[in-house]
Structure formats: C-alpha cells, structure tokens
C-alpha cells in the first residue's frame, strides 16, 4: 500500500517508517507540521527543521506545513496538509508513530476516516524502553532533543542514547522518578542515523533549560555527512 508518514524526525515516526517498509508498504511522502506553539498538544516541536535533511537522507519527498499550533485549529491544518499531500502523491493510508497518546491518536484516526484513508499506528501501546532497545538493535542512533521529567537533566540533551543510557532510564523509571506510562512528553528525540538514511545527520545546537529537568535543543546548524 502507498502510505504517507506523519514525520517528526523523532524515533517513533522514523521507526514506524522502518516497520512499514519491512511489511512491504511504500512510503511516498513525509508530512511534517511545523508548529509555532512549543506547547502544542499535537505536534513535536524541538529540532523540527531537521526533518528536511532526514527526508533528503531517506530519499522521500517531504511536505512541511506550518501551523499556529492552537488547540483544535491545528487539526484543521493537519487535515489540510494530508489532503494536499494526497492530491500530490496519491496514497491510501497514513502512518504515524503514535505510541501512547490517546489525544493525538484519536484525532489522527478521525481525520483519516473522514477522508477515506487507512491509519496505521504500528507502535501503539508499545513499551518505550522495549522500543528503544529494538531501535538500538536495528542500528538507529538518536539523541534527546528535549527533556521534561524529574531525573532528566541537561546532560541528557544532545547525547547519543546507548544501552547504558537505557539502563539508567530503567532505573529512573523503577524509582518512580520518571514515568513512561502517560501521554508522553517526558522527552522528545531526534534520529541522526539509521539504516534508511543514506547519510548521517550532524547537528550543532545550543541548549535552553527552563529549570534543572526541563529544556530543549535549539538547532543552530545541520548537515548530511
């Protein structure tokens, strides 16, 4: 089936593309919503501009659409972007990396059903630690592009996540300092290298911390190498 992937550049949407291709589907375009609202309920915002390079590295056409990120209105912007992409690339379904957020997943399901598209969420309800373990075993490299949870301090930002880091995250989770069970948002990620990328994404960035456990990367430069 020809699919469009809702793409944030993070581990979930990138891994969903990998799984869809493994199941014989063709990803004909990537759709990214660039939200002006850093607190958007729907859209990932840190390092979103890097998606253009990631798409280039995968050789998949990329549609980048702007949204003000206002609650509910941003859904109209998403629907418009999907319709525009469908007209251009003629796909039968939409692929997302939705993992745990009922808010995000149900809104995308409604949009897809309304315009007669299949909706695929292959990571739905997957344990995030198990997912990250799988990503490392499939040679995905990713960094945290934002953190917003107790225990996730500045040193987690812009750091390539390793198996040792997963052990540290498991400990934080076991000590109830970090919960993976909610609607997400404890951290956002950026994939810099994976088997689907022809070239690695190299970024330069500065960190902006709101407090000791909340902060994000501001990308100041990016290139494919």
């Amino acid at each position: 089936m020809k699919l469009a992937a809702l793409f944030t550049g993070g581990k979930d949407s990138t891994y969903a593309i990998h799984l869809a291709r493994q199941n014989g589907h063709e990803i004909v375009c990537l759709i990214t919503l660039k939200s002006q609202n850093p607190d958007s309920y729907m859209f990932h915002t840190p390092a979103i501009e890097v998606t253009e390079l990631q798409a280039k590295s995968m050789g998949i056409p990329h549609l980048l659409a702007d949204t003000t990120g206002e609650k509910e209105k941003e859904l109209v912007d998403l629907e418009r972007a999907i319709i525009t992409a469908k007209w251009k690339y003629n796909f039968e379904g939409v692929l997302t990396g939705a993992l745990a957020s009922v808010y995000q997943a149900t809104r995308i399901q409604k949009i897809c059903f309304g315009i007669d598209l299949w909706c695929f969420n292959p990571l739905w309800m997957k344990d995030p630690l198990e997912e990250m373990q799988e990503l490392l075993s499939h040679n995905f490299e990713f960094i945290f592009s934002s953190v917003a949870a107790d225990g996730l301090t500045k040193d987690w930002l812009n750091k390539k996540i390793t198996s040792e880091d997963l052990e540290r995250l498991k400990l934080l989770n076991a000590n109830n300092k970090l919960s993976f069970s909610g609607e997400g948002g404890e951290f956002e990620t950026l994939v810099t290298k994976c088997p689907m990328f022809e070239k690695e994404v190299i970024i330069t960035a500065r960190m902006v911390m709101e407090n000791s456990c909340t902060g994000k990367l501001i990308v100041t430069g990016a290139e494919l190498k």
Partner: protein
Amino acid sequence: MILLISTCREKLSDGEFLGPVKRVVKDCVVKHFSEVDKVDDYDKIIICGTSLQDNECFEDIEKFLWLTTTTKPVLGICAGMQVMALTFGGVLLDSFEVGMIEIETLKENDLFRGTFSVYSLHSSGVNVSNDFDVIAKSATTAHGIKHKEKPLYGLLFHPEVRNHEIIQNFINM
C-alpha cells in the same frame, strides 16, 4: 494456552490491534483468522480488533463459524465482537465512536462492573440476536455482549488500551 486471533487484513495493523493484547496476555499462540479451523486445543480464545477501514473479516464471516460450536471461553474485541454477533445472526449498525467514552454495566458479569471510562475506535456497532444479552452500553450503543448459555463475551471498546484488568479477568475466569 490462549489463542489470539488477528482480524487485520494488513499485517502492519497487528502492531496496533494485536500487539497490545499480546503484551497483556503474554503466553499465547497467534493466528490470522483465515488460518483458524479448530480452536478446541486452546483454553481460551481472544479475537482482536482491526483498523476502521478494514472490512475483510466481515466479508469472510464463514471463517468464524467455529464460534457457533465451541464450548471454550471467547473474548471478541471490537471487530471480534462484531464477527461474534454476525455469526449468531446479528447485524452491524452505524456507530462511530473514537476516543475515551463512558460505559455503563447493564448486567452483572465476570469481566467488569459499574461505570467506567474506555478507549473506543469503531465505525460500526451491533444489533445482537436473542442468543446474547447486552451487558454494557455507552450513551449510544451496545459495548458489551454475553451469550446467554456459552462463555462468549464481546466488547466493542478496546480494553488493551486503558482497561487491562478486563483482559486479565477474562484470563483468570
């Protein structure tokens, strides 16, 4: 051993509809509905849901006729409940509910009680034959059914998302 049955036309949908149930059940055998001929070697059977756009299992309803003869406990989730109703002469109705909704228990049963919040994702509901009792409902449609004589349960909502204890209650039944 529990048999988990996929109703998904596309294998990519299994991650969404079968995977979360499998994580609750843990030890199980997984089969696609088209491969299931006999179920009596298993202790219990769970028929999982599928995508809103996927109608394949309804077009192949004879593949579920084992439901009419088995004496094993069966839990049908969403499309699983719909095929259960259809094999006993029920019909599908238009019913579009997506997201968290409130469910009210209508009849005492082994899986749940009271009023509670569930995740729903369906574009059809069911009108069941006289073989079934409706044991739960939302504001608009039947969300739980139970065969009057056999241990056959159907849920229109998805307990694998926010109500794992219901699947656990079925396993422990």
